[in-house]
């Protein structure tokens, strides 16, 4: 049975090479019938890789421990859903998943463009298949998911999956992240096709914008879920540690977000063409580079895959080669993509968007430098120097505030040139709201009022006020026409101008996320070693240690502590942090217990039951954390509004 998987991969590789050849031939010779051949081969490759995926799923489901991958990433004691999720728990399997997603995207872009963009398509297919060929070679020869153990070594049980990964969020987080990272291959392919054919008009980026939004949304979801998982599983009371693996997923998000903004300037004003192409190239390169970073082990991370030198050099070569080809193509066409228009005034929406782009790119440069500092310092100083998590917020803080400011300002300034009168009219109410909010926050916090939270929450209020004002004015205008009530007008806005009004919802979600993060300035934490019956206070809560019991589970043992939680004299419930030991994997895990509200989270981990019978707890009080997740939901909702395909939208986008 596993042989079918290995053969499928090899067969898919042959077809992909043939398809790539016909795509190039079709592109160079302008032979549309060969484009069809190339497009059909995409379907065939997809079908064979799907078979390989199913074979691996089947092997994981049926305990096929002849396979090295199955034996090292699953165990009989794991429930079916975690055994299946083990497909992306290790290097080889996750590469197979990456490959499958890439082909799924390729099939989708072939299907949606079956009657459109015909001159671009051979090159789009060529780029997508070239990427697929690389991953096919990896899973066929370098890290094989279907590698067998030596005949004598067949095991009766596997090694199991890292228990930290056995969590519901971890079943979906990698899928979301890959749907995001891999998906940027499509805009990359379209941009490259436009460069090769010289058809640098409006077609490629109209097509590309939607193909960028989709992976961008999933990347956003993946990043938020990753934070959520860290918060619930890793037990250190936080959701983001500026770890290389986190940065690797965040770095491509920055130029992608910049692109989604600056592409609007290209749509409206036919400017920044080169810049947009560069952003697309940068985004995809960073997707690949991030994958390389987390899998090669060149920087230390909480999350490391196996480190094989072949894999490292092959993958780095691939990343550099794709970047080189793409950016050479941009340089080659630089004269043709020079834009006829210029920015007319620094007080204009395009200037605002341009600033926004610079902020995103500055953030990227800073995070990139910090993440790769061990490598950079090794090259220049001969010593590995790491930067702590304290390095990143130095810049990320002020840049995030500036970005927040632009979020409010940008949409209110007119295109081309805004008059002073219109600016002051637009900003009157939001400005007042922001000012009042800052003052209220400042007074409410009293002595603990510092620069960051006051600025952040004041600006947050300002942005929300601009969004409310935009909606209110537009709804009022529609209602005054007399045909709609307020609710109908609201839904009509989301339908008719989903890009703009959905975008505002995304902004609202982002504001809540930033506001929630600013709460971390007031985080409290304590380490307490206490006997049963003792109590202590943190952040207005009172915790009393009741008992500790052994955990009566089959796959893991350990202790669960019980603490009574009070606010004043009012009992709020019982907290049950656990210290687990997974027998098979020989790995301990601290499972925190969290009491969550819209004001703050009380987060308790059991560090140890000491020899003298006392217990050591690490307790955190994290204000406003919940708003990050609430903001995340709204962010996703807004993105869905933007992407949602309306039947009348195809027509709208035709006339711009």
């Amino acid at each position, binding site marked *: 049975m596993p042989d079918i998987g290995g053969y499928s991969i090899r067969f898919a590789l042959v077809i992909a090479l043939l398809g790539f050849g016909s795509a190039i031939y079709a592109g160079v010779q302008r032979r549309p019938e060969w484009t069809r051949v190339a497009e059909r081969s995409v379907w065939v490759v997809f079908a064979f890789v799907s078979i390989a995926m199913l074979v691996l799923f089947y092997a994981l489901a049926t305990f096929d421990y002849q396979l090295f991958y199955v034996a090292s990433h699953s165990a009989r004691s794991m429930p079916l859903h975690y055994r299946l999720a083990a497909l992306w728990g*290790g290097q080889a399997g996750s590469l197979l998943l990456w490959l499958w997603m890439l082909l799924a995207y390729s099939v989708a872009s072939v299907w949606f463009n079956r009657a459109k963009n015909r001159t671009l398509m051979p090159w789009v297919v060529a780029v997508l298949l070239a990427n697929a060929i690389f991953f096919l070679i990896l899973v066929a020869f370098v890290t094989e998911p279907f590698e067998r153990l030596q005949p004598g070594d067949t095991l009766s049980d596997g*090694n199991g999956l890292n228990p930290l990964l056995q969590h519901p969020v971890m079943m979906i987080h990698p899928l979301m992240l890959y749907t995001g990272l891999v998906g940027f291959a499509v805009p990359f392919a379209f941009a490259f096709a436009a460069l090769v054919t010289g058809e640098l008009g409006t077609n490629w980026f109209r097509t590309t914008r939607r193909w960028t939004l989709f992976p961008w949304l999933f990347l956003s979801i993946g990043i938020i879920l990753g934070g959520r998982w860290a918060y619930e599983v890793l037990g250190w009371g936080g959701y983001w540690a500026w770890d290389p693996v986190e940065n690797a997923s965040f770095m491509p998000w920055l130029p992608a977000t910049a692109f989604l903004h600056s592409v609007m300037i290209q749509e409206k004003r036919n400017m920044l063409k080169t810049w947009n192409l560069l952003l697309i190239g940068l985004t995809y390169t960073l997707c690949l580079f991030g994958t390389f970073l987390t899998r090669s082990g060149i920087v*230390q991370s909480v999350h490391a895959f196996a480190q094989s030198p072949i894999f490292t050099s092959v993958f780095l070569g691939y990343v550099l080669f794709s970047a080189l080809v793409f950016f050479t193509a941009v340089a080659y066409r630089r004269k043709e993509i020079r834009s006829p228009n210029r920015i007319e005034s620094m007080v204009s929406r395009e200037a605002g968007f341009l600033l926004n782009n610079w902020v995103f790119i500055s953030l990227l440069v800073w995070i990139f430098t910090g993440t790769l500092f061990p490598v950079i310092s090794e090259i220049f100083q001969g010593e590995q120097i790491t930067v702590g998590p304290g390095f990143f917020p130095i*810049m990320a803080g002020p840049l995030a505030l500036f970005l927040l400011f632009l979020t409010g300002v940008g949409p209110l300034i007119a295109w081309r040139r805004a008059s002073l009168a219109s600016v002051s009219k637009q900003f009157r109410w939001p400005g007042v709201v922001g000012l009042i909010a800052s003052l209220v926050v400042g007074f409410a916090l009293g002595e603990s009022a510092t620069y960051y939270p006051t600025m952040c929450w004041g600006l947050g209020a300002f942005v929300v006020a601009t969004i409310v004002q935009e909606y209110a004015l537009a709804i009022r205008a529609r209602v005054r026409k007399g045909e709609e009530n307020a609710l109908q007008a609201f839904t009509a806005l989301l339908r008719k101008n989903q890009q703009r009004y959905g975008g505002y919802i995304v902004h609202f979600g982002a504001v809540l996320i930033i506001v929630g993060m600013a709460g971390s300035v007031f985080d409290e934490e304590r380490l307490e070693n206490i006997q049963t019956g003792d109590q202590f206070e943190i952040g207005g809560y009172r915790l009393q240690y009741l008992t500790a019991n052994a955990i009566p589970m089959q796959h893991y043992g350990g202790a669960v502590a019980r603490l009574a939680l009070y606010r004043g004299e009012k009992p709020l419930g019982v907290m049950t942090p656990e210290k687990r030991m997974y027998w098979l994997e020989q790995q301990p895990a601290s499972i925190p217990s969290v009491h969550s509200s819209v004001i703050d989270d009380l987060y308790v981990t059991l560090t140890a039951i000491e*020899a003298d019978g006392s217990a050591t707890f690490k307790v955190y009080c994290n204000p406003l954390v919940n708003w990050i997740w609430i903001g995340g939901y709204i962010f996703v909702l807004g993105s869905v509004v933007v992407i949602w395909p309306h039947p009348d939208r195809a027509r709208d986008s035709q006339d711009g």
Partner: protein
Amino acid sequence: MTKGVQIAIGATAIAGLLGWYGATNLDAAPAFTYYKSLEEFRANPDARSGARSRFHGYVAANSIRRDVEAMQVRFLVQNAPPHAEGESGVPIEVVLDSLETPDLFKDGAEVVVEGQLVAGTAGPVFEADKILAKCPSKFEATPIDSTES
């Protein structure tokens, strides 16, 4: 002066301002840490005395002492895993000023300790405020786990 030049000047000014801001604030955070093996650290400890550093090694067998009264954990770090063949070298004593240790911290675990070297009564002691522990895993999954105090 064309708009392009104006924009270039603006961009340079902003980049310079940000760079200056970042550079002046770097000292505020204990951001930079050297990373070396215990041997490399031993070979040149003076250059780093007082400076934050970090090194990696292995927890010596049966060396972990949790002192609940003093809220400290003391342990020895050596060059090689306890059960490996060959020289494990002279261990160094590490004091973590906290009872909070990572899940994977145990006898024989590979650890990365961060902090500074101080003179103790019985020789130099490394005062750690952060330890990371790696899991000596059989195949490829190698989670690292950290704690900060």
